[in-house]
Structures are given as structure tokens and as C-alpha cells.
């Protein structure tokens, strides 16, 4: 239903913009690009890098694609520093998965003023300042619905559950949790699901593991831990398995099939979801290249062809007023049936 409506709206918009044709990007133009993840050393960011490399080769950009990120303990300051440096060096585009909240804004604005295009992916700049466009992996509203549906199914429609998030500053995590809360409140279907607490494991195995156990201790009737982070969901599943709690407390959220396969198969995490990070890196690169070479203007309603992934449109971001996004989607929901195939 929602999809048909969305499609109709899309058709309507493209019809009003008489003959708005999808722009095809001309390859071979030289522009230096920086891919800036939250921090180095996490598998999903490396997958995004692979996707960007694929697009870099395909678009035959003679310039450089640099994968630069801070070390984990220095994420916020490191991101700001790399952003500042990229701006002063006149890099064509910075592709940012923001972990610094609005603290990145001054650096991003300075870079943007000196001509560097800031394209965010995975996690946007919350107030949208300094950012050209955000490549949204999935609709943030849809994330809430997918999580609510998984919770509904695993818990049999009723009971208490809790959220185990990454850091309290992560814009994407907070938007997903907010959307989960609004979905829960708006639909009668979820009336008997009670979200009792949200805790933060800061994307560290150890902290996430301990937080998951603390949740079980604090809420004796807890039936599910929902972790919209790949580190958190794995740590929570391991904690439940180690303490023999899988029968009582299930784990769900956003996870990597390769890391979650065993927990899906043994029933600790019957369902979880994710999107393809390689595709996300690929699409982000296409947009950043288009903007940096001046082939895309970044206006709302602009339609373009992103290589093998097909046509996309720049649109207003419903979650952030005044900001723009390109929506990738969709989710894949993994269960014991399909997780093994995806893990390899």
C-alpha cells in the first residue's frame, strides 16, 4: 500500500517535471574523493569501501579515492580533523558516515565553502548544515516498521522488549529508535508491545554484552532485545547464549549474516534485517562523483542513473527539515532459512 502510494507520488513528480530525464554520468573526469567512515576496522565500512572502489573503477576517475577514517577511540575529533584537512586540500567530495552529530557542522561548512561536496551516507548530519545530500540506506521510517514487525512476530504480539543501541550521539540510531517508537504508538497492531528501556553499548562488544545482561537483570519479564547495530546484536546474542537465556530472551535488530548465522540457526536470534553496504558505498560514490564534477546539481527532483543500480531521485528528507536525500533501500530480513546462503 505504502509502496504503491510512493510510486504514484514519484510518477506524479516526474510527470510534472516535463521530460525530466535521468542524467547519465559521464565517466573519466578527474576528481579526488575521500570516503570517511565512523571509524576504521568495522566490516560494514570496509564493505562500503569496496562498493565505492567498484564505482571509482567503473567511472574511470583518474583522481584518487582515499579511504580515511579516525581510529576508534578518536572518532569524533578524528572525523572533524579529516573533514577540515579534506576541505583545505581542495578534495572534490567527502563521503561521510557521521559519528560526530552536529559537532561536524563547522568543519563541513568550511569544506563546503571551499568547494568540497559533502555527501553523507549511513549516518547523516542531524541538522543537515554543510551537507549536499544524504544517501539513506533505507527509509528511516521503514526501519522503525521493520523492527516493530520483527518484534511483533518474535514476541507473538505481546510483551516487554528493550533497545540496545550504539552511541547516544549516532544520528542514524536515534532516528531509527524514534521511528520505532512512533510506529509502536501509531498502530493498534503493536499495542501490546512495550518498549521498556533503551541502553547504549557504544558499538563495543564488551559494553554491549554487559548492557544486554543488565537489561535481563533489570526486567525479569523481558522477551526481546532489539539492537539496531551490527556490533550490539552480535554481543547481545552471545550474551544470551552464554548465560543460557535464549529460550527466554530473543535477540533481533540489524546484523550481518556472516556474524549472525549461528545465532539464527540455534534460535537465539530468529530474525534480523540489514541492507547491502557494498551497494550503499557504490551509490554514494556515484552521487558524490556527479556532484563534484558538476554533472549533478543536487537539486530536489533531480533524477540520475547510478550505474548498475539504476535510476534514483534526489528528494526532500522527511526526517530532517530542509535536508535532501537519495533513498536506496530495501531491507532484507534474515531468518534460519536464508541466513546461511547470505553468510558466505
Amino acid at each position, binding site marked *: 500500500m505504502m509502496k504503491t502510494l510512493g510510486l504514484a507520488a514519484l510518477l506524479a513528480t516526474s510527470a510534472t517535471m516535463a521530460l525530466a530525464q535521468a542524467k547519465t554520468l559521464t565517466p573519466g573526469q578527474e576528481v579526488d574523493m575521500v570516503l570517511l567512515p565512523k571509524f576504521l*576496522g568495522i*566490516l560494514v565500512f*570496509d564493505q562500503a*569501501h569496496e562498493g565505492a572502489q567498484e564505482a571509482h573503477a567503473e567511472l574511470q576517475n583518474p583522481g584518487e579515492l582515499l579511504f580515511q577514517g579516525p581510529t*576508534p577511540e578518536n572518532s569524533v575529533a578524528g572525523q572533524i580533523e579529516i573533514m577540515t584537512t579534506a576541505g583545505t586540500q581542495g578534495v572534490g567530495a567527502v563521503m561521510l558516515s557521521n559519528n560526530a552529530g552536529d559537532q561536524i557542522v563547522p568543519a563541513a561548512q568550511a569544506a563546503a565553502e571551499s568547494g568540497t561536496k559533502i555527501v553523507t551516507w549511513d549516518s547523516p548530519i542531524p541538522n543537515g548544515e554543510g551537507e549536499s545530500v544524504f544517501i539513506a540506506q533505507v527509509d528511516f521510517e521503514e526501519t522503525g516498521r521493520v523492527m516493530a514487525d520483527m518484534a511483533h512476530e518474535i514476541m507473538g504480539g505481546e510483551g516487554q522488549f528493550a533497545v540496545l543501541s550504539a552511541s547516544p550521539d549516532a544520528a542514524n540510531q536515534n532516528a531509527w529508535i524514534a521511528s520505532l517508537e512512533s510506529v509502536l504508538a501509531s498502530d493498534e497492531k503493536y499495542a501490546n508491545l512495550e518498549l521498556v528501556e533503551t541502553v547504549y553499548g557504544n558499538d563495543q*562488544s*564488551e559494553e554491549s554484552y*554487559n548492557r544486554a545482561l543488565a537489561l535481563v537483570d*533489570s526486567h525479569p519479564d523481558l522477551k526481546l532485545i532489539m539492537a539496531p547495530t551490527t556490533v550490539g546484536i552480535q*554481543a547481545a546474542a552471545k550474551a544470551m547464549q552464554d548465560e543460557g537465556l535464549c529460550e527466554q530472551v530473543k535477540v533481533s535488530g540489524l546484523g550481518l549474516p556472516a556474524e549472525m548465522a549461528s545465532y539464527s540457526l540455534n534460535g537465539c536470534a530468529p530474525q534480523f534485517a540489514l541492507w547491502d553496504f557494498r551497494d550503499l558505498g557504490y551509490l554514494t560514490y556515484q552521487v558524490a562523483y556527479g556532484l563534484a564534477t558538476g554533472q549533478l546539481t543536487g537539486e530536489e527532483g533531480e533524477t540520475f542513473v547510478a550505474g548498475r543500480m539504476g535510476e534514483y531521485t534526489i528528494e526532500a528528507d522527511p526526517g530532517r527539515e530542509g535536508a535532501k536525500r537519495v533513498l536506496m533501500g530495501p531491507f532484507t530480513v534474515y531468518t534460519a532459512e536464508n541466513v546461511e546462503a547470505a553468510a558466505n
Partner: protein
Amino acid sequence: MTRLSPGTLRILALLLVLVLVGAFFASQIDNYLNARLFNRISSSVAIVALIACGQTLVILTRNIDLSLGAIVGFSAYATGALVTTAPDLHPILLALGSLAIGAGFGLVNGLLVAYAGVPSIIVTLAAMAIFRSALVEFSGAQSITTDDLPQWLVDFPNLPLFTVAGLQFRAAFVAAVVIVVLVHLALTRLRPARALYAVGSNPDAAEMAGIDARRTVLAAFVAAGALAGLAGLFFLARFGNITVVAGLGFELKSIAAAVLGGVSINGGSGSVIGALIGAVLVDLIENSLVRWDVVSEFWREAVLGLLILSAVTADALLMRRLTRLRIRREKAAAPATKEATP
């Protein structure tokens, strides 16, 4: 009545603080005091205790090691990679491997501090960043997952060895306590280990007494590194999923544990048993704060800091009072002995 040594007094004071903290949270949190709490604390103390023990050795020599967290992370990842490629590796060899990796890093720190004369806070601050970056480079963004590990390793931390009054004593915790006790025995009984105290309380006097201060400091860093390396193996076994953030923040936690445990930051005084209890205390506070509704997520770190500060202050005041009490009692007893001598 046999007189208690200052060290024993300190341990007793710490245990008292531990009981008070436990009692406070028990009054605040439902279903608090139970076997589960013991499992939670003991399982995570198994890792921190080893690091705090190593940190204590370094602090005793008037130095500090900020790189221990990074060493834990590197060792966790490297031993994970090792056991993934060679799943049949004997557990003892794997443990030795983790010790060697940690000792190697400790050697770098120790040489720079002891022989190049660079202050330890600077050496290990730089080392913390360098070791962590080395891990980022070494890992190539791949993470170690539980599926890659042999079953015995995954089972080890949660293996119940024996049960006392319904409390499970699990393998990793027992192993960590045994190691701390062994280090304690070495520090109190062995001459070379006593040198750590001598160098820490008065380096010049130690030199005069024929102690090689440089070698002693080097040894402290190597031992601390080795213990952190072993803690890395424990970390791997417990959490399974190792990314480059593994062990982040353990350096500060270990310092907090040591200081809470009565190890003087000025060197020369303190015990690893104290550091062990300090580790329990830090973990108890942390674990309980997570479940205490009054404190929000954003204030927890601040409250933890405040509690540590007050615990250390309370401990210092208590110790001063006890020492004063003893001096007074000794003075009162002194004339009597004098009269008895002639």
C-alpha cells in the same frame, strides 16, 4: 591479639567499602543481591583483574601504562586470528602466545621508559595510539567472529569449576584470581619482585642498595604487557566478536581499579590483591549504575567518576584515622616497654 599490618588493614577497609556499596545498591535496585550478580561481576572481573594487576606492577615503580587497553585489543585480535588459522593449537601454546604478544609490546614501552628516559605517561600515550593503529592495519577491517573459534575456547569463560553456596566459580575468574595470588606471593616473597617496591619508594636508595632500577622498570612493563596479553585471550574467549575497538578504555579502568585498591600513584606502596578488590569495586559500581534508574545514560560516567573519587577519599581518610590510632596506641605502649628494658 595479633596486630594487623597496614596492608591488611587497607584490604579490610576496602572490603568494608565494597559491602557498603553493595548494600546501598541493594536498597535501590530490585532483585539485586543474587547469584546472577555474582556471575556478572566475576565474569567481567576475570579480564579487568589481570590488567589491573599488570597496571599495579607498573604503578609500583612510579610509572603508568596507558597502552594496556590497546595491548588487550591487539592480543585479542591476534590470538583470535592465530587460533582461526590453527584451530588445533594446544591451549597452553595459545596462552603462551598471548603472553608473548603482550610482553613484546611491554618491552617496547619498557625500553623507552627505562633506558631512553622518556616519561612513561608520554611513551604509553603514544604507544596507545600506535598499538591501536597497528591493530587497525593488521586486521584489515575484518572482525573475528565466534564461529571461527574452537569450542573449548568459547566454553572456557563460562565453565563452572565449582559452586559455593549457590555461587558459580567459573574457569576464567578462578584462573585470574590464581594468577593475581601468584603475583602477590611473588611480590611479598621473592627478592627480585621486592625490587619493584624499592625502586618505586626511593630510586636513589634502591640504586645504592645495588638494585638495577632500569632493569626493574623494564621488567615491570614487560610483565604488565604479558598480563594484558593474557587478558586479551580471556577477552577473545568471552566476547568472541573482536573488532578494532576491543579493549578500548581498559587502561583507565585498570588505573581506577589499582588506585581504588590502595595502590599509591606515587609508587612504592600497594598490593595486587588490593587492585583485584578495586577491580571488583569498579565493576560492581558500573554494573549497578546501569540498573539504577536514578542515573541517566548520559550522567553515568560522571557518577562513576564521582563514586570512585569518594571511595578513594573515604579510603584515604579511614586509613589516616587508623594509622593515627595506631601511633597513639604505640606511644601509650612505648613507656611500658622502656620501663621493662633496664
